[in-house]
């Protein structure tokens, strides 16, 4: 009942629990007349209540102008009590429909009263004298002649809901059905506050019949990229995360916690059908793809000022996890783009591929290559020593592109003869780069970006570094 109240908070703040010791059990009454317009009218509201309450396991639901009449109708399995005047609706109902009447059911049936209408027709004074006044008050309240008095259920500050599962569950995927119940309640609680959530925690408690080394249970904390209370999105996200979970023991109970609701900017509904709002937002779909594939497989680029191609682009996760919203995509257009001056290819090999050479030291890749444009010299990165260190932007001035005259190469070679041999090519390409880039073409491999660099004092090598695709 508590979970149901959490869910129902979204429809109205005026809801109350009506306890009953009869076979029908407790009832929850909602005053909805003020909420009809917000939810798009009486019919859509009724449809939504029916659909979601059925999911939450509500046994019967009915509408009536007064709360006691609604309870009475629900007990008799009649859903709709709004069309006719209340006395006509209530008259054929049996005595047990209203608790206060049901207490005197035996006496009343001996008097020949089989329905509420017959009881209502009895003289009021005699009825009050022979039974207590409660029966008159209840009948008047049911007919709308006296006001109802309820203590409304207030909204809890934290969301904390438990659910005992109807059966023991071994598979993490199968927890989803129970978790959906709890998420439905969470969304109701959030909607009541006009808020959304950025993270929530699902805990599961293992059955008592578990082996000794297995703990009490486990938990899963889920962060969303943006504040949301979209039930479908939360369910799909949770499902992706649960797919990675392996349960140590059967689960008997689930609980869901959420601490900090955050204000949510809501969009007003549109009069005209809005086609663009149909699908999920990009953030949501990338979030789900990230949840399945991993954060290192869904990435956005960030340009850095560097002349060496492999240091120009830093790939960041497209959906930063948790609170850290490092590179919001909306903020990027304001950052000035560091578009390098040199023509860059559209694909870049993660590590340069050394090419074979023919007898004239010309590069071979799927046959001989035709050098079309070049050379463009890139020389830099000598300041970039340790692995993993990212160059600061003011070091950019040290780099220069040297489109030198042919003679300068020979001078370089003479200097290199005395110097110790250079390190292995891969570490060299990762940090200090001294390369001559060419655009080459092969009929089979297309337009390639290759570079020539020295491996030692008197031997050079060609590397494939990119493709102009």
């Amino acid at each position, binding site marked *: 009942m508590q979970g149901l109240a959490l869910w129902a908070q979204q429809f109205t703040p005026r809801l109350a629990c009506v306890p009953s010791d009869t076979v029908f059990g407790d009832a929850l009454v909602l005053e909805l007349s003020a909420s009809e317009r917000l939810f798009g009218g009486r019919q859509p509201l009724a449809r939504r209540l029916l659909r979601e309450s059925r999911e939450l396991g509500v046994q019967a639901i009915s509408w009536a102008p007064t709360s006691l009449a609604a309870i009475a109708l629900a007990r008799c399995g009649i859903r709709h009590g709004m069309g006719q005047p209340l006395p006509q609706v209530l008259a054929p109902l049996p005595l047990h429909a209203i608790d206060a009447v049901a207490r005197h059911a035996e006496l009343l049936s001996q008097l020949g009263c089989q329905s509420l209408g017959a009881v209502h027709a009895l003289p009021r004074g005699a009825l009050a004298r022979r039974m207590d006044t409660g029966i008159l008050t209840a009948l008047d309240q049911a007919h709308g002649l006296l006001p109802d008095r309820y203590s409304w259920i207030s909204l809890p500050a934290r969301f904390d809901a438990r659910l005992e599962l109807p059966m023991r569950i071994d598979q993490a995927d199968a927890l989803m059905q129970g978790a959906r119940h709890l998420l439905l309640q969470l969304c109701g609680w959030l909607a009541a506050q006009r808020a959304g959530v950025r993270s929530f925690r699902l805990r599961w408690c293992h059955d008592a019949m578990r082996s000794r080394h297995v703990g009490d249970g486990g938990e899963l904390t889920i962060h969303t990229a943006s504040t949301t209370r979209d039930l479908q999105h939360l369910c799909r996200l949770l499902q992706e995360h649960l797919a990675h979970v392996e349960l140590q023991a059967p689960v008997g109970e689930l609980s869901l916690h959420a601490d900090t609701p955050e204000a949510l900017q809501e969009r007003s509904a549109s009069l005209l059908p809005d086609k663009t709002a*149909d*699908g*999920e937002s*990009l953030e*949501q*779909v*990338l979030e789900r*793809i990230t949840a*399945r*594939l991993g954060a290192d*497989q*869904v*990435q*956005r*680029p*960030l*340009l850095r000022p560097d002349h060496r*191609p492999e240091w*120009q*682009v830093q*790939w960041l996760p497209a959906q930063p996890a948790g609170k850290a919203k490092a590179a919001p*995509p909306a903020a*990027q*257009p304001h950052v000035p*783009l560091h*578009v*390098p001056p040199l*023509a*860059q*290819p*559209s*694909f*870049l*090999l993660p590590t340069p591929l050394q090419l074979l050479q*023919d007898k*004239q*030291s010309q590069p071979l890749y799927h046959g*001989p*290559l*035709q*050098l*079309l*444009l*070049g*050379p463009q010299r890139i020389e830099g990165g000598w300041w970039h020593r340790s692995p993993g260190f990212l160059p600061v932007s003011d070091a950019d001035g040290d780099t220069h592109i040297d489109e*030198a*005259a*042919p003679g300068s*190469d020979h001078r370089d*070679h003479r200097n290199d003869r005395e110097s110790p041999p250079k390190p292995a090519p891969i570490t060299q390409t990762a940090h200090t780069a001294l390369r*001559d880039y*060419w655009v080459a073409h092969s009929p*089979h491999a*297309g*337009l390639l970006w290759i570079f020539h660099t020295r491996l030692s004092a008197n031997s*050079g090598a060609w590397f494939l570094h*990119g*493709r*102009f*695709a």
Partner: protein
Amino acid sequence: MPKLDALSLPPAVNAQLWRGDHMVRAPMAGIPTGWDALDAELPGKGWPSQCLTEVLQPQAGTLEWRLTGRGLQQCPAHKPVIALGPPLPPHASGLAQSGLAPGQLVWIHSSRPQDQLWALEQLLKANAAAALLAWLPQVQPEQIRRLQISAQQFEGPVFVFRPESSQHQASAAPLRLLVRSSQPWSLQLQLLKRRGPVHQGTLELPAVPPSLQAVLPARLWPGTVPLPQPATAAVSVSSSNTALSLPYHDTDLGRPAAPLPLPRSQRARQSSLLH
């Protein structure tokens, strides 16, 4: 089979009728490809929305951004372009030079084909991206069919890049192209399938990578002067002997930039002389 006479049909039926020798009227206007010659051959006068465009090519990673780049610039800038499973990491600064802002690019790379298919289907259903480029070398015909059904909700071009060998497989994609880049500055495009009459022949599309356009010397521009023929054997031999295996550097863009590979006959003769 009796020939249908256009005049004998009611106008409402006639408007709905598609004849095999006419181009079908696309429900949504396409996104201009950047080549008028190609636009004229495509239904909707551009890359179609709400359906798959299958691009077959001999080798992956040789022409994709040149083929699609001009169209991607026409896409709405607030939505991203998603590259799914490219054969090599895309180079964002090179793409920025081609007009695709780094903030607009998302790179999804997964090694497992089923994950790629799942991600593509989710992206198609979400309809949140401006364009999708997916490299699916192992995709099966029934998977293409399923993707095509999902793509009907997606308002933007969807390119699926496949190897040339799948040319003879049936495919549900309404537009299939076979593209080669055997010339450096142009693409050779064949329309294998379209919603319209059969297209014969090859379209020659000039396609200089946009990042190279500024630095390309006039002698290399396509269509103006034929590509330079290989240099004389004497120059090649001398440069390879003296320059310590470094290519002959020349910054004057008016002259031949590099020793070009010799024709096979000359090279054979040269090697026999050297030994």
